[in-house]
């Protein structure tokens, strides 16, 4: 598995180096290039969003296994809908009111949000108030000092635990804001709530996280 990861990492790095134009391109142009048949554009797009999108899904659901399924389903939908992205692009652009955000990112996180809601509705369960070990686990950094790693791991675990204890709406707002880097308007349009509601939820959520990190 590590060999595969190394190979993929080298491949993605080489692709990024060999295609600086693609790396600097916007999400929309990359998606359009992929729709035209350029698979390297999708690789750049995928590499750009896989981390935040993965963390958003796993921390929203609280389970790495179910988050992985949602992650896979979401990207499959992106692949399947590549032809119709042009029409979706125009409707997604209104999510980014200040034109600084990415319509593709908002679209991707909307797909993830809908899948997560479907999953929770299908299972007829409330979102997990705790996260499994794979989500709570703090990734080890070889270059960091062991003491620093221990402190970071402890803080990470407290942060994740506090995040898991948040109400689902507040947790999702925090994740969309922190991981998706979406604006309040984009979050409101995605979740179906007004900007002030989203802002209020975010305020409450961050206050609770601050207490846990204090």
């Amino acid at each position, binding site marked *: 598995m590590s060999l595969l990861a190394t190979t993929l990492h080298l491949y993605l790095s080489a692709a990024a180096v060999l295609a600086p134009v693609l790396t600097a391109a916007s999400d929309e142009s990359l998606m359009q290039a992929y729709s035209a*048949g350029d*698979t390297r554009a999708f690789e750049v797009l995928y590499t750009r969003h*896989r*981390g935040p999108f993965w963390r958003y899904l796993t921390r929203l659901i609280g389970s790495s296994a179910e988050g*992985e399924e949602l*992650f896979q389903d979401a990207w499959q939908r992106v692949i399947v809908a590549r032809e119709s992205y042009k029409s979706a692009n125009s409707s997604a652009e209104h999510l980014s009111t200040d034109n600084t955000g990415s319509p593709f990112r908002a679209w991707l996180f909307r797909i993830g949000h809908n899948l997560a809601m479907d999953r929770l509705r299908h299972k007829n369960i409330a979102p997990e108030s705790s996260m499994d070990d794979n989500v709570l686990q703090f990734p080890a950094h070889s270059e960091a000092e062991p003491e620093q790693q221990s402190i970071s791991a402890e803080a990470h675990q407290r*942060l994740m635990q506090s995040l898991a204890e948040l109400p689902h709406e507040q947790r999702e707002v925090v994740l969309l804001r922190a991981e998706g880097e979406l604006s309040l308007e984009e979050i409101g349009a995605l979740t179906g709530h007004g900007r002030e509601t989203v802002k209020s939820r975010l305020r409450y959520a961050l206050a609770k996280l*601050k207490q846990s990190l204090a």
Partner: protein
Amino acid sequence: MDTLDPKSNASSTTGELGRHQRVLDAYLAHSGNEPLPPPSLDAKLLALASSAVKAGSTGLTETDFTRIEAGLLNERLSKASTRSRRRHWPYALAASVATIGFAAILARTGLLEAPGSSQPKFNEPSYQASSYEAKSVAQEQASVDATAAMADATAADAQAAASEVPVTVLAEAMPLENREQVAPALAAASEDKAKQNSVADAEFEHSDGATRGRIAAAQSDAPAASEPDFGAGSLAATAPDDVATTPGAARSLEKAFAPPAAVSAAVPAITAASAPMLEASPSPTAMAATELAELDVQATDARNRRAEFDAAAPVESSQAQSAGASADASANAPAAPPKPSADGGAVVREEKPAPVAEPTISANSKKDEFAGDAQPGAVNPYAKTYAAIRALRDSGEILQAKAMLARFVKAYPAVELPADLEVLGKTGN
């Protein structure tokens, strides 16, 4: 720019949202850019994206793309199964322990033999490799022989039944005086059967040992069939109690109790002797036809008598009036025709013997209903009945009126009805 921009450090120090921005910064600092999806998932999704492009722009129904999707689905199912196993491992462990324990209990009680325990041991005296195999072959051959013997015995039994049953049935159905005619033939048949039994016993003793010996002893205890016995349990009485169940013994028993050839030879004689008797007895169909014809004659005769009586004397008998409907005999008796007295006074009636009964009981009962209605000496003796029927008709009870009229007509078919009642009977008005 939103003040809660997580990537903006400039707004993190202003206001409440700025203070919260520090929380977001801390979140990002603690969570960092990890974790990331597993590399295997990255590879599969990239392969899926590439395959989708190769599949063309018309759709994603190409084989390779479908295969990759199926692979992803299988992997997900496998992971779900693994998770389920991990979640339920205590139950699986408990089930395994219970299974092993149950098997151990069975092994200790001897119900379940341990693997290899059924193999013969070298130190056992009964163990010989060649004889072991030969025994198996011999057992198999014996099984085949037994099956064939049973088939032969069944065929012989069927043949014996075909030849024996008519003799027994005919003999039992035969009157005693006719049995004497076939007694010599049956006696000869019994002797032949006794001889056949002795031959079968000899074969039986020769071919098998103890089992056949027991059966022979039981058969020797049975009474000799010196006289023909036509009872149903005659054969059962000679059967031994401890009949062996081996195929050879069964076959010998079938031979022993098979009908002798003389019995088969006596069948034509018995049939010839009983033929006149069978021909003399009428068939059930002919008997039924005869009885029906007799009944028809009686019914016709009764009807004729009734018609004659009704035509001669339409007045009911006074005795019938006094007797009422309770006495069937007097009710069944038709009214005697009135005879004028010599002095020209009151009408006296002559006692007549009861005529032949009506062919049906229902007619008598209907007649009883109107027995008290007749008015002796009146112009219309059934005026009361007619009035009752008219009253029903006029009150709207048409069906009841018609029913009463029908009963009356059935009881007195020769009586001529008034015109209005005729109309009622025909049209219902």
